[in-house]
Structure formats: structure tokens, C-alpha cells
């Protein structure tokens, strides 16, 4: 049995068709990412699975149980961190954990310390929520989502608005949560985040899933999209386009070239030979593997905009 099974999910808000027939399954213990730009339908999809927004069509099962029409049944088995980290801001981290544990009717006992340690907030047990930084509040929200030891954890854009250091700290927290044999579903609009954290990624755009696989498989599918980047003087675009394996030549800036190649190794050999023969110096030579960004570009024909 899968942790989550979503089939033909539909949601409209007035004239806006926010989610158009989304289907996917998340295996138990998997870290599953939903990646896409703002307005792609990620959050709406997540909220329908969490039981906050009623779908207009399609079905959702969590651990074999239908979420709708009575979402409270499965809500006891999932932990949720919302995009807005709402909490009673005059309560301390320890008090909030205790309060949420009482909501679920599970004794917290000594687990408060362990939960706070898991999210790196052991020093902040007695700090009021409003005194915490943005990143610390995100981590507290994750601790609150874990208070009843749920099998599935949903994180909605957990690192949005954080500085790079706080983002990396939060990645460690998410990895630690996933390491506890939990299923983690997260949405993000950061490609690198999906690439580092997720076992599989669904890329969403305009309310549809446009690609779904492990980050590596998605990138491997674009093997022909390695890029060779360098600076040089006096090379013609036509000559470069004729090199073995080259699909496309970008020369947006004077003397800066970006070759897209299906055979980066052959391309390099020919390029180096060409420069040797002409006595042209190659500067800042780099070969880039395709990233999820390229997957997105390939699937939608547009640049990924965060």
C-alpha cells in the first residue's frame, strides 16, 4: 500500500483552473517533492491532500483511507507544516509542544526535548514563539507537526523566505525527519532543494504535472543537454555550431559562449583542437551537467522563474 494515492485531482477557483487532473502516488518512507513556480498549483494540491481544501474532482487516499469527505479521520495520522507558520506567539516552544500534544491526546513526557533537539531548538525551549527568527519558527512548526509521531509529514515551502544558511539548516532537519522512516511530502520552488532532498520529484506548471521521476532520472533524460561554457576571442558562432554534438550556441555577451551538446566529451576535444590551431586562448572553461532547471525548460519551453 502506498502512503498517498492521488488520482485525477481537480480544483477550480471561479474562472481559475488551479489544478487540472493531477495524479501521483507516494511510497512509504519516500521523500517526495512537488516543484514548480508560484501559482503552479502546488499548495492547492497539498491542501486537498491534507484535507483543508475540498477537491472538485478526483480521489485522494492516505494510507488506504479516503481523505474526503471526512478528512478528520486521516488528519490524526499526518503532520503538517503550513506555508504560514501560525502559532500562538506568546507561548514558549515547550508550551506549544505540550499544548499540541494535548490536542492529540498523546502524552509528551520527555519527548519535547528530543523533538526540539531534532529541529535544533533545544536552547529555545523557553523562548516565546514571537522571539524566534523566521528559520527557527519554521523548525518549531516542523517539531509541532511531529508531536503525535505521524507516519506522513507535509511541508509546504518550508524554506521560502529564509537566508541561505537557515535554508541549509532546515535541509538537515528535513533529512533527519526523513531518516526516521517517515514519508515526507514537500513543495518548493527551489530546484536545488528538490534535487538534494527528494527521492522523487513531480514538476508542476499551470496546474499540471509535467514531469515526475527521481531527480537523477529526470536529468539523465536530458543527457543531451550538457553545457560547455567558456570565454574566448575571435571565434565565429557558425564554426562553433558545426562542432560535433553541438545543438545550440548561445553568445549573449561579447566573447562568452555557451554550447549545448549531446556529446560533451567529443565537443571538448574538437573545441580545444580548434583553439590550438587558431592560437586562441580558452578562458574559464566549464562543463555543466543538466539540472532540474533544464528539465523545466525542456518540458515547458520557458525559463524557470522562482
Amino acid at each position, binding site marked *: 500500500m502506498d502512503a498517498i494515492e492521488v488520482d485525477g485531482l481537480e480544483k477550480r477557483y471561479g474562472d481559475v483552473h488551479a489544478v487540472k487532473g493531477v495524479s501521483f502516488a507516494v511510497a512509504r518512507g519516500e521523500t517526495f517533492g512537488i516543484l514548480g513556480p508560484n501559482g503552479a498549483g502546488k499548495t492547492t494540491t497539498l491542501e486537498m491532500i491534507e484535507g*483543508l481544501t475540498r477537491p472538485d474532482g478526483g480521489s485522494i487516499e492516505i494510507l488506504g483511507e479516503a481523505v474526503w469527505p471526512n478528512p478528520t479521520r486521516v*488528519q490524526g495520522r499526518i503532520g*503538517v507544516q*503550513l506555508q504560514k507558520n*501560525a*502559532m500562538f506567539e506568546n*507561548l514558549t516552544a515547550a508550551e506549544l509542544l*505540550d*499544548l499540541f500534544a494535548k*490536542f492529540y491526546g498523546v502524552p509528551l513526557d520527555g519527548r519535547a526535548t528530543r523533538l526540539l533537539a531534532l529541529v535544533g531548538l533545544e536552547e529555545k525551549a523557553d523562548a516565546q514563539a514571537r522571539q524566534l527568527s523566521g528559520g527557527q519558527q519554521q523548525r518549531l512548526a516542523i517539531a509541532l507537526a511531529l508531536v503525535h509521531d505521524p507516519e506522513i509529514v507535509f511541508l509546504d515551502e518550508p524554506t521560502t523566505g529564509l537566508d541561505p544558511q537557515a535554508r541549509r539548516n532546515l535541509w538537515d532537519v528535513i533529512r533527519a525527519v526523513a531518516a526516521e522512516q517517515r514519508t515526507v511530502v514537500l513543495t518548493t520552488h527551489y530546484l536545488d532543494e528538490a534535487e538534494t532532498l527528494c527521492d522523487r520529484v513531480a514538476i508542476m506548471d499551470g496546474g499540471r504535472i509535467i514531469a515526475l521521476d527521481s531527480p537523477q532520472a529526470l536529468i539523465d533524460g536530458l543527457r543531451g543537454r550538457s553545457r560547455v561554457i567558456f570565454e574566448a576571442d575571435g571565434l565565429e558562432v557558425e564554426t562553433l555550431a558545426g562542432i560535433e554534438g553541438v545543438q545550440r550556441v548561445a553568445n549573449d555577451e561579447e566573447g562568452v559562449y555557451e554550447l549545448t551538446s549531446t556529446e560533451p566529451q567529443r565537443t571538448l576535444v574538437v573545441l580545444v583542437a580548434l583553439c590550438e590551431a587558431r592560437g586562441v586562448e580558452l578562458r574559464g572553461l566549464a562543463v555543466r551537467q543538466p539540472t532540474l532547471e533544464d528539465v523545466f525548460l525542456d518540458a515547458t519551453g520557458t525559463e524557470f522563474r522562482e
Partner: protein
Amino acid sequence: MNARRVWSVVDASVRMFRRDRPAFFFTFAFPIMFMVLFGLIFGGGGTSRPTVDIVGTGPVRAALEQSDAIKLKHQPDAAHALKRVRDGDEPAAIILGGGRARLVYSATSQVEAPIVIGVVRGIVDGFNLRAVNARPAMRLEASRVEAQSLDYVDLLVPGLLAMAIAQSAAFGVAFSMVAWRQKGMLRRLRLTPLPLHEFASARVIFHLMIALVQAVILLTVGRVLFGVHLVGNALALVPLILVGGVAFIALGMCIGGRVNTEDATAALSNLIVLPMTFLGGVFFPLDAAPAPVRVIAAFLPLTYLVDGLQDVAVRGHSFVSTLPNLAILALFAAAFSALALRLFRWETTT
């Protein structure tokens, strides 16, 4: 209903409130400031015992001095007394002499002048009757029902208590509801197994606790600063505070359910609660108010809370005699609760 869960929310509410200084100030210090201010301005029986200038001596003066309806202030000559009335220093002056009692008053003293006229006329008529040896055709027997004479502050203290309960319940509930919905706290709670009715019950219990603490504080301040003693049984106040409290908490939930932003909450709460405090008999007795005001007041829940609290606190009424007020407050509570349930929303809708 899971009592442990409800109590955990009450406990959390108390902790949050204790750490929220603005709320603390608004709930306790604000009504005390009001009481001190109004007590000082209108205290000492300002409206109930007018002061009158008097010139000359004689039996009429002696009789006036016996009256506890007015206070006399001796002036040496009539011209001076007249000037003082014209300047508005005193509402009226009585000039005695030559078998005549002359009364001059200012038309601006709409409350005091009729009292003074009535008192002086009564005394003069008495002398006239005695002079012709006539038997009065009708006798007036007047006796006071209150244990003590009622000054303005005596009514102000329970009135302000009613206002404080109404304001902090309605404002407090509405503001927290809107803020929690805006910040997504309600949505977060919705994902937990805590049912809405348990959350709402806990918040009602918390706000009723606040109302009872307000009662203890304001009645104590009234007693210490203005010597206003609680005449009736303090326990008879409790049902009024609780039922009235529920009515205003539910009113706050209606407001909080209707609006989306904190600014709109402030505007709508003031629009509803502020006129109520002026028309509900907090600052002036409704018996003396014009008919249209009394008609409006009859439709305001605060009127019945003010009246009930005054009945018990200063008129010494029993619990049983507060039942009509209690019943009406219960009706308001039920109506507002039903409306609040209809207006409730988890999410801010646009």
C-alpha cells in the same frame, strides 16, 4: 467534550493573556482610569444636590437649610448673587426679604433649576397654608427606598463594570479571532483533532474568568476610591456577569466572523459597542433620558447588564429580582451565539 483538552486551551489562553501587556491594560487599567476620571468629574453628588446662592435670612431660609435636596451658599447682596447666576456660576439664587422669596434661575440648568423651584415652592406653600390656618386637602408622604442616598458614582461603578465586561469580551474575542484567522492559526488548529466547539468553549470560559476578575477589581477600586459599598449580595452579581459575558463574547464572535482585518474589527467593534455604552445607561440614568433614547436602550443588551448590576450592587436587590434581566440577557446570548455560528469561517475569504 474532552475536559482535559478544553482546560489545556484555557490554561494556554491565561498564559498568553498574562504576557500580552496591551490586552492587560485594555482589560483592567482602562476601566479603572474611566472610573477615576468620571468619579472625579461628577463625583460628590454633583447632579443630585444642586448648590444655590442665598441672600437674606428668615424662616424660609431656616426651612431650606433643613432640606437635603439643595445646598445653600450665602451671598452678601442680591446684585452679586444675580451676576453669579447670569455668569453660570450657580444654577439659581434665592433672594429673601420683605415677605417675598425671589427665585432667579438660569435656563441652561435644565436639571437643577426644576429641583430648586420645586423645593422653594414647597416651602413657600407651606408657610402660606399655615398663615391662613388651612387644613391641607392632600398630604404628601415621601420615603426613600435605598438604604443610603444614591450619588452619581454609586451608579457609575456597576455601570462601568458592565461596560468593561462588554468591551473586553466583544473586542478581545473579535480581535483574537481575526488575528488568528489572518495568521493561519485557525487553519493550523483545524488540522489537529481539537474540535471547534472545544476551542470555542475554552475561549468562552477564559473570557468569563476575565469578566469575574474585572468585577472584583472594579468593585474594590470603587469602594476604596469613592466609598461605593456593595449593598446587595455579591453572589447575585455572578449570574449576571456570566450570562451577560456570554452575550458579549458571542457578539465578539459575530464581529470576528464578519470582518477580515484588524482595522475593520476595531471599526465595527467601536460602531457597535461605543453607542451602547452611551445609550445603555452607563454614564447617565435612563429614567432621566428622553423617550427615543429609552426606546433604543430597550434593544441593547448592555442596558440589561447595567441595570441588573446596579440593582444588586447599589439597590440591594436579590437574585430573584434580577431574573427578568437575566432572561433577556440569555436571549441575547442565544441569538448572538446562533449568528456567530453562521458567520464563523476558518479561512479569510476574499
